[in-house]
C-alpha cells in the first residue's frame, strides 16, 4: 500500500468510528431522557403515558400509609394545587417525611396512581429539591393568575 492510501484508510476508519460512536451516543441520549412534570401538569394530562418521568412537590401531611407487608407505601405528592397519589415498594430514604419536599421517579398507571420506582429525598433536613420547589412555584403562579 502507498503511504497516501494508508493514511486515507486510517482517516476513513477513524471518521467511520467517530460517526458510529456519535450515532450511538445520540440515540441512547434520546431514549433515556427523563422529564420532570409538576402534579398540575400530570392532572392536566401533559405527562407522557406509560413512560418514565419524575414528579416533585411536598409529601402531603397525613397521607403516608403502609400496607401489611410494611414495605409497600402509599402517599400523596402535592404542589399545593393538585395532588397525585403514589405507590412505592421499598425502603424510603432517611429524609423522606410528610410535609417535606421529595422528587419521585416512576410512571403513571391507568388508574391515575403514580407507580414510583425511585424516591429521592435529598441530603439536608431543610433542603428542598429544586424540582419540588419549582413545582410549588408554578402552582403558586397559576393560583395568582386565576385569582386576578
Amino acid at each position: 500500500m502507498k503511504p497516501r492510501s494508508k493514511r486515507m484508510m486510517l482517516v476513513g476508519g477513524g471518521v467511520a468510528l467517530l460517526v458510529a460512536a456519535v450515532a450511538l451516543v445520540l440515540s441512547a441520549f434520546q431514549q433515556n431522557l427523563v422529564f420532570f412534570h409538576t402534579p398540575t401538569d400530570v392532572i392536566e394530562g401533559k405527562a407522557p403515558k406509560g413512560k418514565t418521568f419524575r414528579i416533585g412537590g411536598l409529601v402531603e401531611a397525613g397521607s403516608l400509609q403502609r400496607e401489611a407487608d410494611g414495605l409497600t407505601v402509599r402517599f400523596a405528592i402535592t404542589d399545593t394545587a393538585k395532588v397525585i397519589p403514589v405507590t412505592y415498594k421499598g425502603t424510603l430514604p432517611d429524609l423522606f417525611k410528610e410535609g417535606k419536599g421529595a422528587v419521585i421517579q416512576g410512571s403513571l398507571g391507568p388508574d391515575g396512581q403514580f407507580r414510583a420506582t425511585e424516591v429521592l429525598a435529598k441530603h439536608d433536613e431543610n433542603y428542598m429539591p429544586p424540582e419540588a420547589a419549582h413545582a410549588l412555584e408554578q402552582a403558586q403562579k397559576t393560583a395568582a393568575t386565576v385569582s386576578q
Partner: protein
Amino acid sequence: MIPELGHFSLVLAFVLALVQAVVPMVGAARNNPSMMAVARPAARGQFVFVVFAFGCLTWAFMNSDFSVALAARNSHSDTPMIYRITGVWGNHEGSLLLWAMALSLWTVAVTVFSRHIPDAFLARVIGVLGCVSTGFLAFLLATSNPFSRLLPGAAEGRDLNPLLQDPGMIIHPPLLYMGYVGFAVAFAFAIAALLSGRMDAAWARWSRPWTTVAWVFLTVGIAVGSAWAYYELGWGGWWFWDPVENASFMPWLLGTALIHSLAVTEKRGAFRSWTVLLAIGAFSLSLLGTFLVRSGVITSVHAFATDPARGLFIIGLLVLVIGASLLLFAWRAPTLSGGGSFGLVSRETTLLGNNVLLAVVSASVLLGTLYPLFLDALNLGKISVGPPYFQAVFVPLMTPVVVLMMFGPYLRWKSDAAGAVARRLAPAGIASLLIGIGIAVAIGHFTWRTTLGLTLAAWVVLASLQLLGSRLRERAGASMSSRLSTIPAAWWGMWTAHFGVGIFIIGVTLVGSIDANLDVRMKAGEQIDFAGYHFVLRGVDSVPGPNYDASRATIELSREGRAVGVLQPEKRVYRAMGMPMTEAALDIGPFRDVYVSLGEQLPEGDWIVSLHRKPFISWIWAGCLLMALGGVLAVADRRYRRLAERQMPASAMQQAV
C-alpha cells in the same frame, strides 16, 4: 485573632501568587535569569502562607470557635475531633482552600524535582501554575472567604453534615483534589511548551511522571469515593452516574488518554498537538468538575452553597482558562510538525484508537451531565439523564478500548504485521469466549452483557499472563531472577494497570448481574434465609454516640449452620440538626460482601431490614488499586531517576530523545 492571621496570610499568598504568575513569565520572555529565579522562592513562599492559612482555619474548627461563620455552620462542640478537622473541607470555602493548598503543594514539588529542566521552561511552568493559583485565591478572597466572622458568635455550631462524618471524609477529598490539581501540572507543562515554542518531545518526557502521579491520585480518590458511597448511602450501589461522580470521572477518562498519548509523544514524537490538547482538556474538565460540584448548580451532598456571584466568577475563570489556552493552541499548533510516521498496524494506531474512544466517552459523559443544566438555564424544562443512558453508551464504547488495550503491548512501534499478532491473541480470545459463556451459564445469568463482560475480563487476564510469559522467554538463557529484574519498572506498571482493568471488569460484571437484594420486615428474634445465608435479628438497642443517638440492630449471620459474623447496622439521629442517617453493616469477603442496612421502624416496632449479597464487589476496588499501583510502578522507573541524577543539559536531552 488567629482567623484574622489566617485571612491576612491568604492575602499574602495571593500577592505571592501574582508575583509567581508574572515575574518568571516576563523573565522567560526576556531571557532575564534573575527574573526567572523568582519562580522558586515565590512558589515556596506562597505554599508557606497557604498552609498557614489552612492551619488557622483548622485551629478554629478544632477549638470550636463559632465566631468563625464557617465553623459555626459546619462543626459542633460534640463532634469528634477527627471530624472537626475534616469538617474544614466539608464545605465550599474550606474545600477551595484545600484545593489551593494542593495546588501549592504540587508547585513546590515541581520546584524541588525539576533540576534537569532548563530554567526558562521551568519559569514558564511555574508561572502558569501561578496564574491558576492567582485565579483560585482571588476567587476565595473575593467570594468565599473562609475566615468571615459571625458577630456575635454562635453559642453552638450546626454540626457537619452527618453523611460526611465518616472515615471516607478523611482521605477521599484530599486524594481527589491531589488528582484534580495534579492535572494543573500537566497543563502547565503543555502551556509552557506552547509558549516557548519548544514542541519537541522533551516536554512530554518531563511532564509524564507528573501526569501519571496525578492520575494515580485521581484513580485512588475516585475508588475511595465509590467505596464510601457504597457503604454510606445504605443501598449498596457503588456508582450512580451522579453528576458529581461524573465530574471526577471525566478528567479521569481524558487523563487516561493523556498518559498514553504522552507515551507516544515521548517515544515516537508523534501526536504532539493531540497531547497538548488532551492536557488542556483534562485540566479544563478538572476545573469544570470542581466548579460543577462546588457552585451548587448540581444539587447533591457535595453542593454546599448557592451564590450567583460565585457562579459568575467561576464561569469567568473557566472561560478565561479554557479560552486563553485554546487560543494559544490555535496560534502555536501550526508550528507543530507531525513527528514520526507510523503504519496502519502499529502500536501507535491502537493508542490513537483508544485516545479517540476515551475522548468520545468523556464527551458523552459531559453531554449527559451538562445537558440538563443547559435546558434548565434556558428555561426549556427540567429533565434528568439517568444511569441507563450512561450504561447504554459506556459499554459499547469501552469494549473496543479494552480489546485495543490487549493488542497494543504486542504490537511494535511504527509498523507490525497484523496476522502474527492476531494469531498470538486468538487462542486466548477463543478460550475467553468459552469461559465467558461457561460462567454466565453456570451463574444462571446468560445475557449478552454478562457474557461480554466475563469474556473481556477473561481475555484481559489471559492475554496479560501470555504477555508476561513471552516477555520472560525473551532471554531464554538467563536465570529467572535476572530475567525478572531486567524488565523495567515502567513495563511492570503497564502490565499491572492493564491486569487491574481485567479484575475491575470481573467485579463490575458480577455485581451487576448476580447481586441479590431483599427488603424485609423483621421483628426482634425473627430469622430469615436469603441468598444462602441465615439471618437472625437478635434485637435493636438504643446506643448513644458522641453527637448522635443510634438504634443499633444486632444481626447474626450464619451459613450452613456455621456462624459467619455479627452485623450491627445503625439508624442514627444526629442531635445538632435532628438529621437521620443510615449506617450499613458489612461482612466483607474476597468473593462476596454481605451488606445489611436498617430501613424505617414501623409503628408496631418492627423494622424494615435491607439485605444484600454483593458478589465480587471487592474486585472493583482491587482493580482500581492495581491500576493505581501500575501508575506508581511506571513513575518508579529507573530512567526518571537517572534523568534527575544526571542533570543532563537540555541539548543533550533532546538528542537522547
